[in-house]
């Protein structure tokens, strides 16, 4: 299945101390209005993201690039910026 790269703008909705977070998109990507960033699994983002997540707080505006392979799977964030500061990769 083809993978699409999509630019997004969004807001950090939730950050948990164990390296789990949710980013809410300004505009839906496929059927998804949000996605997960996680330092514990490689299923959504690059695995080495613990430092990135620890710097994020709910309410922070972010933008970047996500890849998506289907309408329903959560988009995978491959590039993440906060105010032009690149956090991922």
């Amino acid at each position, binding site marked *: 299945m083809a993978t699409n790269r999509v630019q997004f703008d969004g807001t950090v909705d939730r950050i948990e101390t164990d390296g789990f977070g949710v980013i809410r998109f300004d505009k839906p990507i496929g059927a998804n209005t949000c996605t997960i960033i996680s330092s514990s699994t490689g299923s959504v983002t690059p695995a080495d993201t613990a430092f990135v997540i620890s710097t994020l707080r709910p309410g922070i505006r972010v933008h970047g690039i996500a890849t998506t392979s289907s309408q329903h799977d*959560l988009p995978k964030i491959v590039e993440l910026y906060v105010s032009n500061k690149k956090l991922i990769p």
Partner: protein
Amino acid sequence: MLGGWGVPQFEINPYRRGLLISAPPLSKIPKHIREFGFVPDFRSCLPGDLVLFRSSTFSLSSHFISSAQNQFANEHARWTHAAVFLYDDLVVEAVPWKGVRTRSLYKDIPRRIMRVRRDKALSSIKRHRIALRAQSMMGSRYSLKAALSIGWDSSRGILDGFGSPQIGRVIICSRVFHDAYAEIKNSPLEGCVLTDPITPAHLSATAGLEDIKIGWIRVPA
């Protein structure tokens, strides 16, 4: 009103056990269950299964939680707690004060009615990963502060005037399952949105999970 009657729910009800099943005896049964005389055969559960709970008797806190989930049909709103099955009789759950912890399901018998739900489309590996992911949250999430915060937010938001720390409690217990599920499956459950509060009623009503029938075994005293 979300959800509704139609699909039968397979409850683990201490007082409506149905036909007992014949199964090999269980090795470690607590004294209070031996005195009760019956135990659910949790060997039918798999790691990563969702376990829903409700009280077998009336309690004020359960009443408040059910009332706060009143956008759902009663058959879903009546479920007031959620946990993730690990193995044997152990589950991982989130509770105020202690955050995420593990405990035995035997402690719920015969006080609570349970229900086991599963995404049968998931591979065994992914189900195990959900269980491990939920367990990895232990001690790190969902403190009383978080519960109070969610309860306060919810009382001003989607839930009704019964919003209270109790509501925070049920949202955080449901999040343990749903966060782990969504992260491992890379997709939220049908009818659930990651950015919205998830309650036991959501997990009861979702069509993404199917009930698993758990039989009862007679336990010699």
